[in-house]
């Protein structure tokens, strides 16, 4: 895996803006999908994919930014900082694991999916800590959330892997960015 370089200021701006767009699409559109227990979560999958591609530092910092965005935009009513904590920890830990074990494509997908399930549980724990009574069917939500993440994982990992490895100036291009061809993404390892 490539050593982590500090991303340029422009790259950070692109990442933050990209996560704002992802979060808005999530709460205004995807969250309305009437599936039981869990819906596909773009923000969580994007953070975890970046953590796998870029390591613990990028995973932790991107997770913190993305979480803060989720904490601030309506309809957020949970503890402010709750998503920030969950995604920073998940991104950093997953980044560290991926850096140590260097999973292949299939293992990376499974790892991302399992971590997405764990984030559902972590989120429940943080909300519970902040004073709400224990929520209902959270295990079911974690399982369905992990399955949705598994569906989204291949695309997310393709989109973050190529730009992160080859383009130096624009360090990371996000899944929402245009112009990147996902089909030419993998291989190269």
């Amino acid at each position, binding site marked *: 895996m490539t050593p982590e370089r500090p991303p340029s200021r422009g790259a950070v701006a692109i990442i933050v803006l990209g996560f704002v767009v992802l979060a808005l699409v999530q709460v205004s559109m995807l969250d309305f999908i009437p599936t039981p227990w869990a819906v596909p979560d773009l923000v969580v999958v994007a953070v975890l994919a970046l953590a796998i591609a870029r390591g613990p530092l990028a995973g932790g910092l991107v997770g913190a930014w993305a979480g803060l965005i989720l904490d601030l*935009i309506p309809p957020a009513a949970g503890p*402010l900082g709750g998503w920030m904590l969950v995604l920073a920890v998940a991104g*950093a830990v997953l980044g560290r694991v991926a850096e140590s074990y260097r999973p292949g494509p299939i293992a990376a997908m499974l790892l991302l999916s399992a971590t997405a399930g764990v984030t559902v549980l972590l989120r429940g724990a943080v909300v519970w800590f902040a004073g709400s009574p224990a929520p209902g069917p959270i295990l079911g939500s974690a399982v369905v959330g992990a399955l949705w993440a598994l569906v989204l994982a291949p695309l997310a990992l393709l989109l973050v892997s190529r730009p992160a490895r080859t383009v130096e100036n624009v360090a990371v291009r996000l899944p929402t960015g245009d112009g990147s061809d996902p089909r030419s993404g993998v291989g190269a390892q």
Partner: protein
Amino acid sequence: MAWRSTRVLVGAVVAAAVLLILVDMRGTGPTDALRGIGGAVAGPPERALSWVRTQAGQRLGGSAADQERIAVLEEQLAQARAAAGAAAAGELTADQTKELAASAPAQGYAAVAARVVSVTAAQDPVRSVAVSAGSGQGIRPGLAVVAADGLAGIVDSVSPQVSTVRLVVDPATQVAARVASSGEIGVFRGTGSAGRFELLDPLGAMAAGDLIITLGTPSRDLPAGLPLGRVAAVSGSAADLTRAAEVAPAVDESTLDRVLVLMPEPRGEGAS
């Protein structure tokens, strides 16, 4: 070396997040201002995206004209019910209706119509929505948000164009309520997917099918007599210290779309 600096930086953001949570748990403060900024920035695009979503939904789901007509009728129904308070709430007898009307300041409320623009994910234990009306229309935290079938939630935070509404099923929701038929009072709490009503007096009458309504607050922000739900099952006997009931919510959160935010009008103006 690199791993050590990573640890320091990640530790710093984690500590910052924990600090934010602790500050937020202390109640009103700087975190409300932060939420207001978030709402001011995200409000307009959320409204736009929500408009796109409803348009796409109409294209996919049958005749747009029919759906529009249904939506208009639903809104009229919600308005009529909000105006009539508990009277239209369900199977109340004439006497009960009269009694409720006497205790409920159902008149004297202005209603602001709004639509749901965003919701929390199904896997999120926090149950809240954002609606397309904000402090620009005079909305403030604590106001009641009603749908056609009863109380949908309570305004939690506001920004100029959108407000965040904590739904009645949210685990942090807690409102004074009563059994409509017997008048017994108690506390209604959200459980995440439904509600739980706890009688203050364990000897009070309560049975499956009973309608649970709001008691109202002295500030009049939350009117009395708004339906919360129906008793699905009663747990505990009269011999227990507390008796509680599972409550099936009156308002289905999964189909929530058009709502009214009720704003108390100052007393003594045009009344009586």
